[in-house]
């Protein structure tokens, strides 16, 4: 299953650099979660990613995994709450997917939302870009 890449304008972002795309699947709202192209570029030379198992429930703001470069490690924070229904195991063996296609084949997990209202707290692309521009200084 290879989703076509999302347009960044269609995504919501957490201040901690994760992105979310919500779609309806089998009557439930499912969020696809990944990490932003800006963050991937900032981390440089990724070497390892640790992802959770399907079935785990996460809360918004909780760490669901880690991403490592040679000399840095960052937590991945879930932007939303819910049950993890899919994990992109392919990306663990092909980290280049993250830099090549952060908003498509570089997706990380899918979460069945337990609280749709959480989405409202996330940034739209313009606001996120503004935050990134500030961080770059």
């Amino acid at each position, binding site marked *: 299953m290879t989703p076509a890449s999302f347009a960044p304008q269609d995504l919501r972002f957490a201040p901690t650099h994760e992105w979310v795309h919500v779609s309806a699947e089998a009557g439930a709202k499912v969020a696809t979660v990944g990490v932003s192209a800006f963050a991937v570029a900032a981390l440089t030379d990724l*070497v*390892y990613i640790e992802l959770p198992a399907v079935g785990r429930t996460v809360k918004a703001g909780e760490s669901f995994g880690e991403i*490592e470069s*040679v*000399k840095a490690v960052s937590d991945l924070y879930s932007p939303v709450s819910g049950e993890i229904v899919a994990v992109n195991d392919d990306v663990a063996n092909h*980290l280049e997917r993250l830099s090549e296609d952060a908003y498509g084949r570089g997706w990380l997990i899918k979460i069945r939302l337990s609280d749709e209202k959480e989405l409202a707290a996330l940034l739209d692309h313009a606001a996120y870009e503004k935050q990134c521009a500030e961080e770059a200084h």
Partner: protein
Amino acid sequence: MRNTRSTQLLFELSKPGRRGVCFPAADVPTQPLERLLPKSALADAPPPLPELAEPEVVRHFTNLSTLNMSVDTHFYPLGSCTMKYNPKRNERLAALPGMAHVHPYQPDESLQGLLALLFGLQQYLAEIAGLDAVSLQPAAGAQGELTALLVAVAYFKDRGERRPHVLVPDSAHGTNPASAAMAGFESITVRSTPAGLVDLDDLRAKLDDQTAVFMITNPNTLGMFDAQIREIADLVHKAGGLIYLDGANMNAILGIARPGDFGADMMHFNPHKTFSGPHGGGGPGAGPIAVRAKLAPYLPVPVVVERDGHYALDYERPKSIGRVRSFFGNTGVLVRAYAYIRTHGPDGLRRIAENAVLNANYLLSQVKGLLPVPQGDRCMHEFVATAARLKQEKGATAMDLAKRLLDYGFHAPTVYFPLTVRESLMIEPTETESKETLDAFAAALAQILSEPAAALHDAPLTTPISRPDEVRAARQPVLRWQPEPVE
């Protein structure tokens, strides 16, 4: 002139049937092995180790040794590591039979000379620390931190207190928060001021009755003595907490100031740094700790005690935290520390600190015109320069500078630590370097800074290898040699 076979691996040099050592035939009656051991426990064949003759082993490792920079061969200003000269006499003395070939469970009466030495070292370290009691057991500075934190837990527990927090400055070595976590504490970071000292307001905000210990490195990792230490200690003590001093930088204050006098309740020494136990390519070190009398009952067992001129190992310490390792401690390193302290005496130790600080300040005076040193004109035993401007102007980083220094025959300073300074180069010359060496280092740095950025990016050119691919090493780890699969 380099021997290119030297980088072949032992396993590639191996050939079935070669022997490096033979043992005598058994002089006791022999019977079939199966009669001594059950067949299920026996291996079908010995492990598949390489097979080499003795001369090959010697040539292999001797050639490997020439691929290292070392204190014996190069100036090695690796900040926070105190790469001073390692006296040859200490090596010979530590190899004496009564030091090296002694079993840890020999009876006390067979150990009187060695126990006298270890007892003496306990006393000396207590005096240098300005504290009351010493444990020589921890195997390295990080284990010393852990041991002291466990002592603190036991102390508070004994008083009926549970304090779950350890405060650590953001400029601290990573072992501090890691040790705190291992001891079951939550570590809370305290900010530094722009000048690199503890931010007292932030400390006040985070300090409360949940605080067990404040860990401080003083002189700190920027090479500054935090003159607020007395005030910090008063604050922490008033809140009921303890002060832990990370003694990594004791070289700067030997005989000048004592942690116990400026407020520390416990500390560790790094004998492989301060007292010249060699660094051994990454250990062994040792991490003896010194504590105030009220914490002494909780130290690990055993400690060396003296009773009427007789030395003994005391295990009868009911409040002890137990052990953090097997046997007595890293005795071989401790013997060297003893020899070093006895070589210097009180005045000599003070002169070490004076010359370490003199050399660092002199090198600072020569470097500050070349690279900014954010902390200012003076330092203790080391200073931190930054290549941030160089990076901006020329696109060359601290790492590029480090690599180019290797070409000029100098080991690189510590780079990218502490984390509080961008593009940092932490330079610690130590007291055993001459003015000429420091001048040559500064001249090389000046020369390098006048080179085009490309020369820095291409560096090092003269080392056996250049810029290994660390991403590849981490992405597809190859952590052992394996035979080529047979086609």
